[in-house]
């Protein structure tokens, strides 16, 4: 069995000349890593994931997945190994019904139809949307679309899972469900998210990005508890780690309202 790993060396990328999105990134990921990629808006998290799957092409540096370099001719092979959940699930779904969409990848990989059906049923069951199987995609709610887009990737049974803001649009119950799905996925997974609580619950390693560079790379415990580090890079402690107690004040607890026109 191959050892799943990603090696990235001196990776640089810019959409336009002069505005560097990623700047000489060097990092490695290994088989059982669950890596949270965090950073403020525009830090380069999504671009980083897109480069790994070859949706963008780096101007400099290299990415190797299981020793295979990410380049045009190797993309089909690489994409068989990687499941990528897009930030915007509207663009992830393109078939007419959920079932058809979830079956798209297994069919493209020429699996026999009974295996396709088995994988579709399993993926839908994992994300608890079996009841939506025959629903037209355009009729799904935002959260349902997100779950369906996750199912489309799970049906590929990928070796590596890449997720860009997976908890967006999910209600608390489905978010909890997503956390358990992610925790059950035992291979390498990279999750780019602003939802630091999700990262806390699912990742054992965190990479903090800022202005296209890696500002910190370490254990989740170390990085997400480091308030000074997070604040310095435009983030805040996860809500579950804050000691602030939010209490609802009743009318009797409220301080008397101050008059805007105070007497001198």
């Amino acid at each position, binding site marked *: 069995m191959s050892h799943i790993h990603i090696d990235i060396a001196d990776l640089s990328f810019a959409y336009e000349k002069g505005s560097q999105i990623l700047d000489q990134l060097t990092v490695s990921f290994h088989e059982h890593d669950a890596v949270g990629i965090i950073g403020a808006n525009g830090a380069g998290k999504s671009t980083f994931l897109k480069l790994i799957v070859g949706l963008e092409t780096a101007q400099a540096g290299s990415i190797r997945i299981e020793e295979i370099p990410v380049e045009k001719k190797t993309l089909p092979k690489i*994409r*068989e190994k990687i499941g990528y959940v897009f930030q915007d699930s509207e663009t992830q779904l393109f078939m007419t019904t959920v079932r*058809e969409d979830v079956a798209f990848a297994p069919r493209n990989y020429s699996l026999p139809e009974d295996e396709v059906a088995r994988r579709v049923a399993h993926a839908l069951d994992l994300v608890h949307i079996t009841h939506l199987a025959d629903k*037209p995609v355009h009729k799904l709610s935002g959260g349902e679309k997100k779950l369906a887009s996750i199912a489309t990737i799970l049906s590929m049974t990928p070796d590596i899972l890449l997720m860009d803001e997976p908890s967006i649009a999910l209600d608390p119950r489905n978010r909890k469900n997503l956390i358990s799905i992610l925790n059950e996925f035992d291979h390498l997974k990279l999750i780019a998210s602003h939802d630091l609580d999700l990262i806390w619950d699912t990742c054992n390693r965190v990479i903090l990005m800022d202005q296209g560079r890696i500002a910190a790379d370490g254990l989740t415990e170390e990085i997400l508890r480091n308030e000074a580090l997070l604040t310095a890079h435009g983030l805040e402690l996860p809500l579950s780690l804050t000691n602030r107690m939010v209490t609802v004040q009743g009318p009797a607890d409220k301080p008397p309202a101050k008059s805007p026109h105070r007497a001198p």
Partner: protein
Amino acid sequence: MSRISNAANSMAKLDELARQDTWLNRIHPLAKLIVTLLYLVLAVSWKPRQLTGILGMALYPFLLFEIGGLSFKGALYRLRIVLPVVCLVGILNPFFDREPVLTVFGITLTGGVLTMLSLMVKGILTVLASYLLIASTPVESVCGALSMLHIPGILVTEFLLICRYVSVLLDEADRMTQAYALRAPGQKGIARIAWGSMIGQLLLRSMDRAGALYQSMCMRGFQGEKPLFHMKRFRSCDLLYLVIWSAVLILLRVFPVLELVGRLFV
């Protein structure tokens, strides 16, 4: 609801119609596609003045609407923009061909009128036949049937992507007009000053979304060459449908049925 929402909804409704579980929907897409193509060829092959022959070809769409459980009224409503355009074809013929060729109930019809009518009828019938195919077969299945007919993969993919991107374009246009309307209360339509930027934005945004959709397809094994469609087995009832309708259509083409029926009463 805006016109754009209406258009997007109509497309979605048509797709839902195609996914219903009726006997017509269950017929193999290849059988329906071949019958439709045969019908189009035979209907178009009538000479311009053979109006009675062309009218005989109406049997196929009207009978199929009836036995297939599809609403004819619904079809006319959905085709309300296309049908008048089809009727415009040949509208100038009466001005060019004024030779009297027929007298019906004391009214003399010129060659131009006859050819105009036959062109109109041909147009309407072929549009209705195409509608019958689309309303009873999802677009992926039509593409699958085209692949089975060995139509080049690139053409089938183009067809599939056009169908996908039309809805993407409509979605984007709908979002933009909604956002505009919310910030321009009481204003009817879109102010002329905003047209340029709206159209430019629409183009850029739909290109972005279409690009993202394509990326999503690529991420799941699609390589832009050979689209794969799951096609069910071709059953004996599908073959029966194909054979019976092909025979009926060829008979309708060979024998001018309406003329023969008319002679019975003369």
